[in-house]
């Protein structure tokens, strides 16, 4: 094996093992910074050894043993000067090697989404320690400077240490709330990839793939949680449309205009199966959203969509988690099921909503309904307003194009959920 090839092979094994290794080390050191440091040391040792000895049969165990030996060394060397490490040295023997690595990983997932952390910090930490992304990758995904992400992670680790986080699965009474936080973080990551809030690209598939992978990991760790299945099903169904959501030059294509032959059948199959499991377990809001996504996935053509069912599902969702955004989606679905007059009437009821004041999809939906009613002048103004509100360059261009279509007297295209 040539040197660069050997190095790449070792690094590939590292990426497979890193999250579980760090989880195990965090669980017994209760210090994420130290855990990462020890894990990195083990990687360096592997890079030194494996190219000549070959990759061991059980690389995970090799890395764990190496990291722990290093921890003991550190504890001895620092001796009484560092109480924490001295304690660690004692605890090492008590931390049984047969400790379930899945429990450790779940503990790490929950801790990365700890309530003392801001949502931004939860996302950064989850991507870093569970997803294995580098600081640079996280920064480029979220369009923030790398030092900002690095600092966010450092502060998050300090906050966790200060809060005395134990890197364990939280007790039952906190579990539902904390699981909600974990699901929220995964969906945030997915959404940033699916519909970028800023920048010049509408979708960043890599980020969606990462969110899907983490979602699948989570489902395997908590197989009885209906909403974990519901969220994963929702993400798989939405991700099935990624290929069709943009033209080759990156412009957005709305749901009704998409070439459905380009939807990913494998992800649809997985999403529908996941939805069934979620429903059987008694799912919640994510499951209801997955059921809506499934209505689109099941329709062979846009015209075949069961809009009445979509309306009903949005009503069900609104009962569980009332929100102006859901009310807007409900109005759009009503516009598709019962005609643009009905949709417009419902959308107009939302015009005073403070939460939607800067939400570009409100004027965009309104513009669409007005255009369908032939009120092109008003539609044009709405599309222009929407264009001024969005932070995404691709979306802005599309909205301005639609505004222009209204002005030039061209027949406007029909469209449903603008987001696709």
């Amino acid at each position, binding site marked *: 094996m040539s040197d660069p090839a050997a190095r790449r092979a070792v690094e590939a094994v590292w990426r497979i093992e890193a999250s579980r290794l760090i989880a195990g080390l965090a669980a017994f050191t209760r210090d994420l910074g130290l855990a990462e440091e020890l894990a990195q040391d083990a990687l360096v040792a592997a890079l030194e050894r494996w190219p000549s000895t070959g990759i061991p049969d059980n690389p995970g165990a090799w890395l764990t043993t190496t990291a722990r030996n290093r921890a003991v060394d550190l504890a001895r060397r620092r001796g009484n000067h560092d109480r924490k490490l001295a304690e660690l040295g004692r605890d090492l023997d008590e931390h049984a090697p047969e400790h379930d690595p899945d429990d450790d990983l779940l503990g790490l997932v929950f801790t990365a989404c700890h309530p003392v952390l801001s949502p931004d910090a939860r996302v950064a930490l989850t991507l870093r320690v569970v997803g294995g992304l580098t600081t640079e990758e996280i920064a480029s995904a979220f369009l923030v400077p790398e030092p900002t992400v690095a600092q966010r992670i450092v502060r998050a680790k300090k906050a966790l240490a200060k809060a005395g986080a134990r890197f364990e699965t939280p007790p039952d009474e906190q579990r539902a709330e904390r699981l909600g936080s974990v699901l929220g973080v995964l969906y945030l990551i997915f959404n940033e990839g699916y519909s970028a809030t800023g920048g010049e690209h509408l979708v960043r598939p890599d980020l969606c793939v990462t969110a899907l992978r*983490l979602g699948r990991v989570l489902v395997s760790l908590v197989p009885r949680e209906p909403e974990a299945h519901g969220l994963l099903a929702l993400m798989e169904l939405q991700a099935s449309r990624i290929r069709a959501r943009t033209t080759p030059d990156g412009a957005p294509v709305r749901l009704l205009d998409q070439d459905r032959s380009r939807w990913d059948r494998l992800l649809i199959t*997985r999403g529908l199966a996941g939805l069934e499991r979620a429903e059987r377990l008694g799912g919640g809001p994510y499951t209801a959203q997955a059921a809506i996504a499934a209505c689109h996935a099941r329709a062979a053509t846009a015209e075949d969509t069961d809009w009445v069912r979509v309306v009903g599902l949005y009503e069900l969702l609104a009962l569980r988690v009332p929100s102006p955004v859901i009310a807007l989606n409900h109005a759009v679905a009503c516009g598709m099921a019962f005609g643009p007059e009905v949709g417009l009437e419902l959308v107009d009821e939302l015009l005073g909503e403070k939460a939607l004041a800067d939400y570009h999809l409100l004027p965009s939906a309104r513009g669409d309904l007005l255009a369908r009613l032939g009120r092109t002048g008003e539609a044009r103004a709405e599309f222009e307003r929407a264009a001024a509100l969005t932070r995404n360059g691709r979306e802005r261009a599309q909205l301005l194009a639609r505004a222009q279509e209204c002005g030039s007297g061209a027949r406007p295209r029909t469209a449903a959920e603008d987001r696709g």
Partner: protein
Amino acid sequence: MRFMVLVKATADSEAGVMPTPEELTAMGAFNEELVKAGILLAGEGLHPSSNAVRVKFSGEGTTVVDGPFAETKELLAGFWILELPSWDEVVAWVRRVPNVTGAESELEIRQIFSDEDFAYAGEEVVAKEKELRARTENRG
């Protein structure tokens, strides 16, 4: 990136010899690792080629040929579909497939085409898109 890992047939798999409980356990544990890592999209085992059919195309005609087929090394016994960020990682995973009996066998990794692979066809795809839109507009 998506990969298909092809499990090549062996004399045993072609003879319809079912895996031993030991092999099944090892393979089950490996599949569980793939699931836990969140990278397994699909995977199945295939019946031997004695239970297979080939449909051959030539000119305008088709011919149906029943199995079994002779060239064992060219036959398949199963597959996995994995989603991973790099070739290095898929190779690292496939090296972990258990080989309980120690018998000689072969796995082949093939990358599945994605949209980027068709970027060369850009303009044509754009044209198709435009045509599709035109059709929707006329209907609307």
